[in-house]
């Protein structure tokens, strides 16, 4: 049975989640991937304010397909999170509560989650039409010049996800395969 959670995410909600939990997320999430992360970090380096407030929020590592007529968004599955590992700890330290993507994360990212009471949620890679139906609104809010890599605000309802790294530092990418390994 999936646990229902809503952004902005509180410490209490985060600490109640464990690896392997299925969750259905509702509220606002922001898409950002490679180029958007690079630019956000450059802005922080220059002492500028980010175009989105990260406190309590979730970033979805995704670059959606264009919206067909009559739909708020096109297919919108996750991209590989590891490419954002270089940037993620700094954003968690600014109050980001969750990142959403696919694939494992590096140790400094997991440490940042534990330090900040934050989590990592897995969306299923290659499953992109199904989640698009759970997006109620979509609006580009920053970096429009980046095309599919622009930061898009999504209003989602019951977005299906799996807790794969929790705020206690447990990692399903390690524990899952260890449990099923036969060689």
């Amino acid at each position, binding site marked *: 049975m999936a646990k229902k959670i809503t952004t902005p995410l509180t410490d209490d909600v985060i600490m109640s989640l464990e690896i392997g939990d299925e969750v259905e997320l509702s509220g606002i999430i922001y898409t950002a991937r490679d180029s958007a992360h690079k630019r956000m970090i450059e802005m922080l380096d220059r002492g500028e304010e980010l175009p989105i407030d990260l406190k309590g929020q979730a970033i979805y590592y995704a*670059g959606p397909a264009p919206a067909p007529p009559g739909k708020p968004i096109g297919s919108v599955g996750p991209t*590989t999170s590891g490419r954002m590992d270089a940037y993620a700890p700094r954003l968690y330290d600014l109050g980001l509560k969750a990142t959403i993507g*696919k694939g494992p994360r590096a140790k400094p990212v997991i440490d940042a989650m534990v330090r900040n009471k934050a989590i990592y949620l897995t969306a299923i890679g290659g499953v*992109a039409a199904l989640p*698009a139906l759970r997006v109620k609104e979509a609006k580009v809010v920053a970096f429009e010049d980046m095309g599919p890599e622009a930061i898009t605000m999504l209003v989602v309802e019951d977005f299906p996800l799996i807790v794969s790294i929790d705020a206690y530092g447990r990692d399903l990418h390690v524990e*899952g395969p260890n*449990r*099923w*390994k036969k060689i």
Partner: protein
Amino acid sequence: MREIKYEDVVNTVADMCIEACVFLKDDMKEALRKAYEKEESETGKKIMGQILKNLEVAEAERMPICQDTGLAVFFVEVGEEVKVSGGGLTAAINEGVRKGYKEGYLRKSVCDPITRKNTGDNTPAIIHYTLVPGDKLKLAIAPKGGGSENMSTVKMFPPSAGWEGMKKFAIEWIAQSGGNPCPPTVVGIGIGGNFELAAINAKRAIVFRNIGQRNPDPFWAEKELEILEEANKLGIGPMGLGGTVTVLDVFIEVAPCHIASLPFAINTQCHANRHAFREI
């Protein structure tokens, strides 16, 4: 010399782009259904269930299965007695990609390697041509996502490495790729040839074989199953979160090589193993 109209190639290619990105072929659907039945981990089974449901939604809504509609990779067989009138074949294929990715609401994922500026229309396509006898044009498209392509590699072994060396490397490669290439994957392997031919054969293996279709040489057919069986003992499972189904199939294509070399390439393909084929 038979002539094919430029527009006919453009329209055919545009259709292929959309078809490949929205509809998975029957052999892949069947393989994913079997994987759902076979998967023992609870999380893995749920993931396989979502993968199957997503295929239904994509077809019903005419939306791409995966938002990463990839680089447009083509294998084209050009008959020696056929030509495209009113523009060249390469131009026609690129124009078809432009049209298909626009009209199908497919994501444009091509950019400059350094500035990362998007080309805006998913061109240029990557096209592998072969010249063959006859007056037909045969096109195959394999849109390729970045996540699984990034988990591909070429290794130039010394001949002394032999099959055992290659197999060990392949299993370690699949293990370290973990959840990154969106498992369950299809693994294409090119053995022999040279640096670039091994890589092209690894890709060709994925594009031109149906799931379950073994290499016609019994020696290599057995080797395919050897890697498949071992890879599925790694425990990686759907999306790398643990389970019994990691690889759906392994295809090996072989070519003769230099007396000093043993080229070896792995092309990793995610579960959105998308293809479309046409003959004009």
